[in-house]
């Protein structure tokens, strides 16, 4: 089956991101497929390439990147949530004349249509939030 995973909580602040990541790994481990991980609300903070957690804690940003790279999972960040929270890719940084981008290139900035498409196109949609 194909899963869309919706992440609404920020890393560390709430457990939502950690739970979603464990769930995503289990989807892959059980032979299912991740259609898309959609980061909404504070979930967009997972794409912050500057996350610097203590060395003895799980690096959630790197964990998502690894999942995206190793399994080709699409990691999509909601553009409206991201702009409001200051998570920018190169294109948005240029457009809004900000000096830099902090979103990892493995994360795709896109619209809410990707959430709806994910919900419609995947076999199952599971949400993790605060």
């Amino acid at each position, binding site marked *: 089956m194909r899963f869309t995973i919706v992440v609404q909580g920020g890393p560390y602040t709430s457990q939502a991101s950690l739970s979603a990541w464990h769930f995503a790994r289990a989807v892959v481990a059980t032979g299912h497929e991740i259609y898309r991980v959609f980061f*909404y609300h504070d979930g967009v903070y997972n794409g912050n390439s500057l996350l610097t957690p203590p060395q003895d804690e799980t690096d959630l940003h790197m964990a998502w990147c690894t999942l995206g790279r190793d399994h080709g999972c699409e990691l999509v960040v909601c553009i*409206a949530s991201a702009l409001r929270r200051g998570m920018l890719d190169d294109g948005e940084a240029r457009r809004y004349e900000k000096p830099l981008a902090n979103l990892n290139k493995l994360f795709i900035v896109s619209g809410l249509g990707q959430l*709806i*498409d994910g*919900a*419609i*196109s995947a076999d199952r*949609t599971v*949400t993790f939030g605060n």
Partner: protein
Amino acid sequence: MPANPGTQNAPSIGTTAGPAERPNKTLLFVQSQAPHGTLYGQEGLDAIMMGSAFTECAVLFVGDGIYQLLANQDTSLLASRNYSVSYRALADYGVEKLYCTEADLQQRGLTVADLVVTPCVIDSRALQALMTSFDVILDF
């Protein structure tokens, strides 16, 4: 991407399905937070409007979520966005099915006359049936 966000007035399930196409899944959006205290309501409403461009959508207000529809919200002193009025526009997006429960209204001393739009008031048995009748539930 299989979905086509072309039409604004989402036809009901089945009629959109062309010969080689599966019918679109139907979506139930659930709003469960009061407005302004968190951004869930506002960002949830954005998602509902987007959903209406893809497929059949309905909205369920549970618990404090019903407060999002309370009339006469005035956010000018707060310097925040009064998005409650946008719920009136949902019908133009083809989202005409709004639901809440009798218990949630009563518990808050509210009637539908207090709200900016008029949701369909249901009991908990109908709530179970409602949730089962949609393909996907999206929670905010």
